[in-house]
């Protein structure tokens, strides 16, 4: 069989067999409706409570501050729209960054149409928001700052705890202002503590930490008011109506527990593979640009632009030899759509089009890195031999 190497852990992770086992048992055994008063229901309720404690522990939160959702997108919708709708009497201004995930930028754009004002902060060449820009953008009517913890394409880590301190100062001075951070890429990969971050709302997604899709969570600091987006039931403390996804929640709880226990070991492993990979890329392939800050970024991810070639062609060439990666750029209907994140770094179209994200995970090995490098070097060479850009530049 053809060798397959999965280097797309920022898109999703394979389900850990320990998580799959916990979930499979739950599907059969813990079928009760957690809202039911009888024993079957109470068994499900107890299992949800255990999972909630594990998810809370991953980010240093209290159990009753976790709201389970269907995933990161729903959690971001609930956080941003829910907070803005509940606090619009205090102001209608939102501060965000230019490199948010569509589930944040899309909600902000939608609120803009409904009369909110949105300030999108630049990230400069290193892909990081500047705290001075946040301070300057703050207005008396700012009610929400929503900035991601770590970027999904280039992995850059944003200064959330500094922004949190700023928010606390403003709040001490009487302003009604809250901080949300999308931690979908960071949870389970960085040690996180909501008090150190100073955030009021934090988004997580289970399938980025070796659990299945369809389950996520929003951390809601005690006392923060949200306008529910899913109504018609009392579940999740009135924040998210609907019968709980018990097997999904149990899987998330198990995955969160494993992520907390194995965090140091996993991040060391991923970082070593990523660093080895980047060193080999520099050694074997010319005309590459590594995107995003070199230090303040997630350890498992590498975003590289290959000059003279386009990302999708490289992606398919790699896929033909079993190596799975991703690109943020897309060309459709004759319209060029380079990755907005890479464009926000101020790079030219050609580099933005040639960017590829490699993201490593706990089950990757050094042999995977060696194989990926062989395939990558060959594919880049093949595509460059076809490219009028590289031929004319010789």
């Amino acid at each position, binding site marked *: 069989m053809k060798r397959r190497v999965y280097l797309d852990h920022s898109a999703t992770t394979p389900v850990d067999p320990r998580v799959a086992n916990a979930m499979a048992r739950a599907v059969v055994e813990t079928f009760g409706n957690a809202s039911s008063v009888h024993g079957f229901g109470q068994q499900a309720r107890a299992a949800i409570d255990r999972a909630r404690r594990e998810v809370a522990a991953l980010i240093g939160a209290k159990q009753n501050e976790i709201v389970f959702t269907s995933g990161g997108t729903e959690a971001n919708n609930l956080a941003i729209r829910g907070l803005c709708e509940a606090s619009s009497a205090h102001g209608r201004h939102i501060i965000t960054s230019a490199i948010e995930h569509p589930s944040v930028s899309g909600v902000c754009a939608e609120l803009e149409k409904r009369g909110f004002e949105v300030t999108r902060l630049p990230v400069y060449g290193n892909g990081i928001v500047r705290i001075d820009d946040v301070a300057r953008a703050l207005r008396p009517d700012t009610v929400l700052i929503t900035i991601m913890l770590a970027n999904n394409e280039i992995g850059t880590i944003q200064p959330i705890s500094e922004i949190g301190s700023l928010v606390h100062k403003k709040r001490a001075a009487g302003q009604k202002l809250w901080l949300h951070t999308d931690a979908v890429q960071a949870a389970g990969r960085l040690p996180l503590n909501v008090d150190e971050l100073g955030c009021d709302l934090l988004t997580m997604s289970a399938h980025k930490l070796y659990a299945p899709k369809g389950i996520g969570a929003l951390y809601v600091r005690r006392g923060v008011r949200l306008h529910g987006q899913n109504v018609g039931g009392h579940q999740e403390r009135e924040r998210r109506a609907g019968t709980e996804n018990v097997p999904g929640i149990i899987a998330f709880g198990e995955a969160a527990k494993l992520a907390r226990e194995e965090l140091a070991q996993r991040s060391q492993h991923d970082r070593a593979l990523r660093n080895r990979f980047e060193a080999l890329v520099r050694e074997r392939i010319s005309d590459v640009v590594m995107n995003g800050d070199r230090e303040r970024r997630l350890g498992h991810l590498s975003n590289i632009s290959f000059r003279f070639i*386009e990302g999708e062609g490289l992606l*398919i060439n790699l896929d033909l030899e079993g190596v799975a990666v991703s690109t943020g750029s897309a*060309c*459709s209907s004759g319209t*060029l759509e380079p990755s907005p994140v890479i464009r926000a770094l101020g790079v030219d*179209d050609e580099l933005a089009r040639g960017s590829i994200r490699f993201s490593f995970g706990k089950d990757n090995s050094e042999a995977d890195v060696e194989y990926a490098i062989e395939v990558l070097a060959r594919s880049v060479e093949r595509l460059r031999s076809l490219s009028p850009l590289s031929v004319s530049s010789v």
Partner: protein
Amino acid sequence: MAYSSKFKDHLAHPRNAGELPDANAIADEKNPVCGDRLRLSLIVKDNHIEAVRFLAYGCPPTLVCGSILTELIVGTTIEEAKSLTRADLVNAAGGLPSRKQHAAALAIETLHSALANLS
């Protein structure tokens, strides 16, 4: 839609890639919107396309259409080459998603330019 196995084969093993130093019909066209580029160099003799090479930059359909085009036109007469349509290329590629049809248009346009530039 997923790309066909023929499409993937052309992407992994492009035919007639490169340039012809002795070409007497050359064109280099660019899609002004997306920036995709295709360069064709042809040797035309006695009304026949004797040899052809291509270079391409852009999304996979642009690379594949370049490769397939060279296979379709080598050995044909100028008239036969000129009668080639976008649909012929798309069919030869085993189909293209609707949002990628412009790749076939760029290939046909570059072919016509090259033949118009025949010296």
